Every structure is written in structure tokens, then in C-alpha cells.
């Protein structure tokens, strides 16, 4: 059997290391989760999955996370573009500020956001004039998730935009494309895969977010109760298998969504040749 020769040595070592490391950090904890969920038996799992309240909370968690990812995709693209393509005073400071949602403990973020968006807060009071309820409503949850997911899109896009040479745009212009055509036919297709990648990261982060959301959501069953809170409640009742079951459902759903996004990106790459 002919062995494929690699240019660099150490393939076996690094593969072995990768598998061991991945098992320790990801696979073993995740299989424990599945094992815990199975201790309740099929009836327990079925009961949890078909529970109306669990379904309502999962729906809420996934729709708010999805909305937040869309918002982040759009504004993250704008921000990354502005930071990479233009130079203006204070650019470096703003660039550094993008990372703040990473650094801040999420509970602090939640408290800060609810102070702003509560009916007696600065923005909340203004919104209340138009009968818009932000804090203690799904809108508030989305705002918190936009906050925690924002850096993912910007940081994924920045190097791609930096690599995107201006010559492409110039060539398009020389060939008679107007500015709008250049943007939609040349620039945007090149940035789409990275935008999608950033959005999936932001989405993944948002689905499981607990710390900042519980402060701003109001936690009313069937209305503003997110799935991670339901997990906490199950733990509080010493119902470990119920908690793990909800966790596994979230995990599978997230995996399917991320996997689909990845397939879409691949298909797009093949189609456009980028």
C-alpha cells in the first residue's frame, strides 16, 4: 500500500492529538449529556419532547436567535466594511470596541440592557410612547442576543474584506458596471460565505445564551421563557434527565441548522466559483 507523502512531517502525530483532544473537550462531555438524557427512558424523553411548554420555549429560543443572527449579518457586514475600507479618526478605538460583548460577563450585559430598555429606562421610556415593549418581551430577548452575537460577524468578515482587492471593483467599473452592479454582482457574492459563517457562529452562541437573557426576558411561561431557563428549572427539581433531554434537543437542532448553513455555503461556493 503506497503511503501518501506529505510535504510536512507529523501528520499522524497531529491527527492523533486532534482526535484525543476533541474527545476530551467535546465528545466525552457531549456523550455524557446524551447518557444523562437516556436515564429517563424513552417515556421520559418523549414526555419532555412533546411538552407544550418545552416546545414553546424552544420555538422562542430559535426564532429570537435566528432574528438576531439576521440583524447581526446585516449590521455586522456594514460595520466590517466601514472599518476595513475607510480610514477615519477613532477607527482603532471603534475596532477594539467591537470585542467588548465578548469580554463582558453576560449577566452584566443583561443588567445594562434592561436598565436601558425597561419602561423607565432611557430607550425604554421613548419606545413606550409608541406602545413598543422592549424589555420583558421577545424584542428584548432579541436585543440581548444581537448584543452577544455582534462580534462574530464583524470579526469573521474583516480579514475577508481586507483580502478583497480593490482591483476587482475597478475592473468591474472599467467593464461598464455601475456602482450598484459592482456591489451586488462582484463584492457581495465574494463576502456572502464569510457573512453566513459569521451568522452561524452568532446564531450558535445566541441559542444557548442564558446569563444576559434572563434579566431582560421577564421569564413568563409560554411567552418569554427561553429553553436554557427551562433547563435550569429542571435541574432545580433534581430532574437531571429532563434537563439533559432539552439540552440534547437543542444540540441536535443547532447541529442540523449549522450543518445546513455549511451545505448552503458549499453549494454557493461551487456555483459562483469563489
Amino acid at each position, binding site marked *: 500500500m503506497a503511503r501518501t507523502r506529505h510535504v510536512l512531517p507529523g501528520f499522524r502525530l497531529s491527527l492523533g492529538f486532534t482526535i484525543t483532544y476533541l474527545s476530551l473537550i467535546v465528545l466525552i462531555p457531549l456523550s455524557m449529556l446524551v447518557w444523562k438524557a437516556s436515564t429517563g427512558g424513552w417515556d421520559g424523553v418523549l414526555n419532555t419532547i412533546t411538552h*407544550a*411548554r418545552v416546545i414553546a420555549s424552544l420555538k422562542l429560543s430559535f426564532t429570537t436567535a435566528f432574528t438576531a443572527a439576521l440583524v447581526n449579518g446585516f449590521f455586522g457586514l456594514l460595520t466590517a466594511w466601514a472599518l476595513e475600507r475607510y480610514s477615519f479618526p477613532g477607527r482603532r478605538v471603534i475596532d477594539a470596541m467591537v470585542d467588548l460583548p465578548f469580554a463582558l460577563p453576560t449577566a452584566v450585559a443583561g*443588567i445594562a440592557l*434592561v*436598565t436601558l430598555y*425597561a*419602561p*423607565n*429606562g432611557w430607550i425604554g421610556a421613548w419606545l413606550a410612547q409608541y406602545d413598543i415593549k422592549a*424589555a*420583558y418581551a421577545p424584542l428584548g430577548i432579541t436585543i440581548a442576543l444581537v448584543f452577544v452575537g455582534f462580534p462574530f460577524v464583524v470579526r469573521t468578515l474583516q480579514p475577508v474584506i481586507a483580502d478583497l482587492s480593490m482591483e476587482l471593483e475597478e475592473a468591474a467599473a472599467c467593464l461598464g458596471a455601475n456602482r450598484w452592479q459592482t456591489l451586488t454582482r462582484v463584492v457581495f457574492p465574494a463576502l456572502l460565505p464569510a457573512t453566513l459563517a459569521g451568522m452561524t457562529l452568532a446564531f450558535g452562541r445566541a441559542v444557548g445564551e442564558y446569563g444576559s437573557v*434572563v*434579566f431582560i426576558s*421577564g*421569564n*413568563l*411561561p*409560554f411567552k418569554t421563557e427561553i429553553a436554557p*431557563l427551562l433547563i*435550569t*428549572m*429542571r*435541574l*432545580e*427539581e*433534581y*430532574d437531571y434527565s*429532563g434537563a439533559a433531554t432539552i439540552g440534547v434537543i437543542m444540540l441536535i437542532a443547532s447541529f442540523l441548522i449549522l450543518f445546513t448553513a455549511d451545505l448552503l455555503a458549499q453549494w454557493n461556493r461551487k456555483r459562483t466559483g469563489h
Partner: protein
Amino acid sequence: MKTSLSLLSAVLFGITAQAADFELLNVSYDPTRELYAEFNKAFAKHYKATAGKKVSIDQSHGGSGKQARAVIDGLDADVVTLALAGDIDVISQQAGLIAKDWQKRLPNSSAPYTSTIVFVVRKENPKNIQDWDDLVKPGVNVITPNPKTSGGARWNYLAAWAYALKKHGSEAKAKEFITALYKNVPVLDTGARASTTTFAQRGIGDVFLSWENEAWLIQREFPGQTKIIIPSLSILAEPTVAVVDKNAEKKGTTEVAKAYLEYLYTPEAQDIIGKNYYRPRDAAAAAKYSARFPKLNLVTIDGDFGGWGKAQKKHFDDGGIFDQIYQPK
């Protein structure tokens, strides 16, 4: 091997070992921070004077149920001082770390102080809230944490239930009452402190169902903004304490842990308890602080609900009455 190991640890940790003869870890619930900060100082002084040994005490605070789970999962607590007997029962039953008869080992069913649930309203009390019936009126906003995640919230819920049951005489009516009450709750925070913030800082709600000691704390932190209302009936909350036998045996701290909890019942400690807005058991301390603790009608968890195990199962477990309140029709 063993000696060389202990020699090594003696070299490494020699400094801390010399600083104190004993180290205790007290795992407690959320609002007792101020109480135990003061009590621990007093006990260390007392123990040095009577037993001639130095003791240093570490504190851990959090939601009562969460703390119980931490001890079950291996947190090295010598003593637990939790919000309700049910949480200590769980440590005893699930992990076997505490003897089954723990509640009989200390006076007053191992509850050295008590507290109750009162109403906190805005300064002028614009909605004129005087008793439980006012909470179910349309347009009144009630702030209380989520009984699924907060020990204090369970006391709130049970007090309301007891009132409705006494007044209307049937469980069906009591369920109607409690459903109407929770319809008026705009935010279900996960813990008592978070609810305090929602009410006092965000300005949400007309009335806040609160631990008595927490209500006094709000008065102190936000002077002139709130008023305490004593309802016609409330519930006797008995936060309980216990030595975690297995942990203390392993660490050799059984004697000092016992002394620590027994000290809670002495006149000095009872005075600290009254000072921190908990109701003391000791008659002298109770008399000294009687102005802040008005007499009220109290139901008890054992007498009126058949103990924590039963109450938990019926009201708060998955599918219990609290879950049914939120079932869409």
C-alpha cells in the same frame, strides 16, 4: 509515601495551616450575606476565648436549591444554612451526607431564626394595597420571583395559597385565586435579589412580595421610597441549619462545626440575628427588636402543608399546580 505527602503538603500549605486551627465552609442562601459576615466574626472570637483554638470561616451564597445541589455534587461544606428544610432533606436523602434525623439535633427543629413574607409597596401606596385580596384586582402589578428557581418565591406562593384556602375553604377556589394572582405578575425573575432590583430600581410593579429581612433592606437602601405592609395572614419561614456529617468527619471539623451551629442559639448571636432583620428565637432579643417585627397570623409548612416534601410535589414539581396556572386554555 503517606508521610512524605503530608510532609510536602505541610511545607506547601504550612502558612495557612498555622493561621487557623480549623477552617469551616458555611454554604448558605442568598440574603444571609450580611448576617453571617457579622456572626462569623463573633463566633471566631467566642471559640478562641472558650476552646482556645483559632477558626476561620468561609462563606458561599446563592439560591438555596442551587446551593443544595452544589453540596450534593461535592462542594466541601462543613455546615449548610439554607432557606428551607426541604433543601437539606434532599442533601440527606440523595447524597447521604447528613443523618436522616438532622432536624431533631438542634432546638426549634434546627431553625435558629425565622422570617416571614410581607408586602412592599410604593411610598404613597397609590393602589391602596392592604391584604392578599388586593393583589388579584385587575390592574395591580405584583412582583415575585419564579417559584421554580427561587426558595423565597415558594414561600410567597404558599402564603398566598394558605390565605385563599382559609378564606374560601376549597382547593378549587384557592387555585383560581393563585391563577388570578400570577396573571398580575409581569416579570418572573429567577431569584429574590433580581426581583428586588426589578421592583426598586426598574420601578416595575405596585407591590413586591418579599422576605421580611429583604423588605427592611430595601427600606434602608432606598429610603423614603417604599412602605412595608403586613398582610392579615402569612407563612412562618424557618430557614434551617445542619452539620454536613460526612464532610465534617472527613475534615475532622465535627466538633467545631457543631459548636458553630449551637452558637447561633446563644443570646449574643440572637441579638445579631435581630439586628439583621431576622426574627430571633430568644425572648430577650425578640423583645429588644419587637418594634420591627409586628405580630401576625402565621401558617406553618408542617402544620398546613404536611411538610416540604408534600408541598414541593403538589405545587412546584413538573406538572404541579404552579405549572397548571400557565397551561394555555
